[in-house]
């Protein structure tokens, strides 16, 4: 039922977005603000962004296989929202992404939803979102592919792994958000969501292996999160839970299609804290993931892994235009094998130990030329290959060193 609903909503939204693009180009050729009618006021709003950068990775296939300087750092988006009546609103966003090996290149519908305002008064808001909605559960999950709305060009990969981007960024289904504002106890937000994400063959290859010629599918994705900001406090705290099931169907077995039918379960729990002061900002997420494989390598194969990690991040606002960033991230795929030795032994030496973890020290800055033009630059020192694609069957031939580095610069405009 939900998938039929979301499919038809997607169709409606695609048509809607095309109209929006046409309307925008018409609007842009005429004066935007006439007396008593304000562009982007009230019922209908259009926004968007364009970002282009350069990125250079030395020592891994994070962006490209040859290690050359790359311009594969393009993000373009346009969105629209239309208030149908006091209870219902339509919203959708189209994005075009090019990140090299990080995710599939091309355009996609980022979200396309019907927002039903179930209840609201001065202190309560309850909304239900039907269709394709964005993951609103982690600190930066809903803004991960909006260049100026996230803290850095490349996010902490252990949580915001680009290889999982298309699956983790949102779902087709239903989500509920309940917000309560209390003058004494502060702001409370509860988010619940249930849905599925389509998995393209390219994503399946990225996640599993080039030899995974079968069909991968997400069976379900259920998530919940809770946020609390004490009254007039610079702090906010949150927790989130995720449970997702995937299946893989081999099709006809052959020499170049060796992996058998399988089920995968992915569970992910996070806790986060955010401090927003006048010049200093602090944020951190700690998390535990559980990844269960039944089958895949051979019938009867079973693997149950618990990985853990965290990052701490600080930003310092030098003035209203210039902000510095520093971040440390530490993640290991198996909490009983933090240095990856077991991983190397169990694979008979095929998978080197450094595929068992991912540590990243990041320094960066961003400079605002105007209220909507920003330049961002950053440098990453990375140890480990635990967050490179493909995930299930890694590629140690290209990723042949434990230490690798990258830098990136990106200019972004939004309206």
């Amino acid at each position: 039922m939900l998938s039929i609903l979301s499919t038809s909503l997607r169709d409606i939204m695609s048509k809607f977005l095309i109209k929006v693009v046409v309307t925008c180009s018409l609007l842009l050729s005429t004066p935007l603000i006439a007396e008593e009618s304000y562009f982007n006021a009230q019922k209908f709003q259009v926004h968007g962004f364009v970002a282009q950068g350069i990125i250079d990775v030395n020592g891994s296939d994070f962006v490209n296989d040859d290690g050359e300087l790359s311009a594969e750092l393009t993000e373009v988006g346009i969105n629209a929202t239309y208030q149908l009546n006091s209870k219902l609103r339509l919203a959708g966003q189209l994005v075009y992404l090019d990140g090299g090996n990080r995710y599939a290149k091309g355009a996609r519908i980022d979200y396309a939803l019907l927002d039903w305002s179930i209840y609201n008064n001065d202190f309560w808001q309850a909304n239900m979102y039907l269709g394709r909605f964005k993951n609103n559960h982690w600190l930066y999950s809903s803004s991960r592919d909006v260049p100026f709305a996230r803290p850095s060009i490349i996010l902490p990969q252990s949580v915001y792994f680009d290889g999982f981007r298309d699956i983790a960024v949102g779902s087709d289904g239903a989500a509920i958000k309940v917000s309560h504002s209390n003058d004494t106890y502060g702001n409370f937000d509860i988010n619940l969501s249930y849905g599925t994400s389509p998995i393209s063959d390219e994503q399946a290859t990225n996640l599993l292996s080039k030899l995974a010629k079968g069909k991968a599918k997400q069976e379900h994705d259920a998530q919940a999160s809770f946020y609390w900001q004490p009254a007039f406090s610079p702090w906010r705290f949150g927790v989130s839970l995720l449970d997702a099931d995937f299946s893989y169907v081999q099709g006809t077995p052959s020499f170049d299609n060796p992996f058998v039918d399988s089920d995968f379960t992915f569970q992910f729990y996070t806790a986060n804290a955010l401090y927003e002061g006048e010049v200093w900002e602090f944020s951190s997420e700690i998390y535990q993931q559980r990844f269960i494989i039944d089958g895949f390598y051979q019938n009867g194969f079973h693997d149950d892994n618990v990985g853990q990690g965290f990052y701490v991040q600080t930003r310092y606002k030098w003035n209203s235009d210039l902000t510095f960033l520093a971040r440390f991230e530490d993640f290991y795929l198996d909490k009983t094998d933090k240095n990856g030795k077991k991983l190397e032994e169990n694979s008979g030496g095929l998978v080197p130990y450094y595929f068992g973890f991912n540590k990243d020290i990041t320094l960066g800055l961003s400079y605002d030329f105007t209220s909507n033009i920003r330049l961002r630059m950053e440098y990453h020192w990375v140890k480990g290959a635990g967050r490179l694609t493909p995930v299930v069957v890694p590629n140690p031939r290209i990723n042949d060193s434990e230490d690798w580095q990258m830098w990136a610069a990106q200019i972004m405009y939004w309206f």
Partner: protein
Amino acid sequence: MFSIFGAIPAKAVEVITHKSITQQSLTTSQLRRIFTMRQTYWSNNNAITIFVLPSQHQLHRSFSKERLAIYPYQLERIWNKLTYSGLGVAPTVVDTPEALIQAVLNTPGAIGYASKDDLILFASAHSLDTKEDALQGDTTEKAKPTDGYNNQGVVHVINIID
């Protein structure tokens, strides 16, 4: 000239609403709820439409810090998250303080802000000799420009209770 606004609390940025808003005052908490989009309807069930200046504008920065006690970058984040994730709708950005006053004047249910000086300038630009009459003896502190806005040209200046 300045005495016209003598009864207004001594903050440089005033909160203004469309004349359809009957509320005489708002608490800082209410104002925060409204500008952080946690309250989207007035108590009479009319939708709230918010107008703001660009995030780097000095008046916006003063309003954010003095009136809301929120840093401008925090507001921007909340609004960006709503706008680019489909979760909600953010305020409408206008380019100049005058355009902001004009937008609030023309939009039922609207709320915005203006500096005392801009309100005086706006009033004198639009009504050379009636502004004193419009404001005199009025506890709701209205600026009343005329010249084509006779029927709708009232901007409420709202009292903010800390």
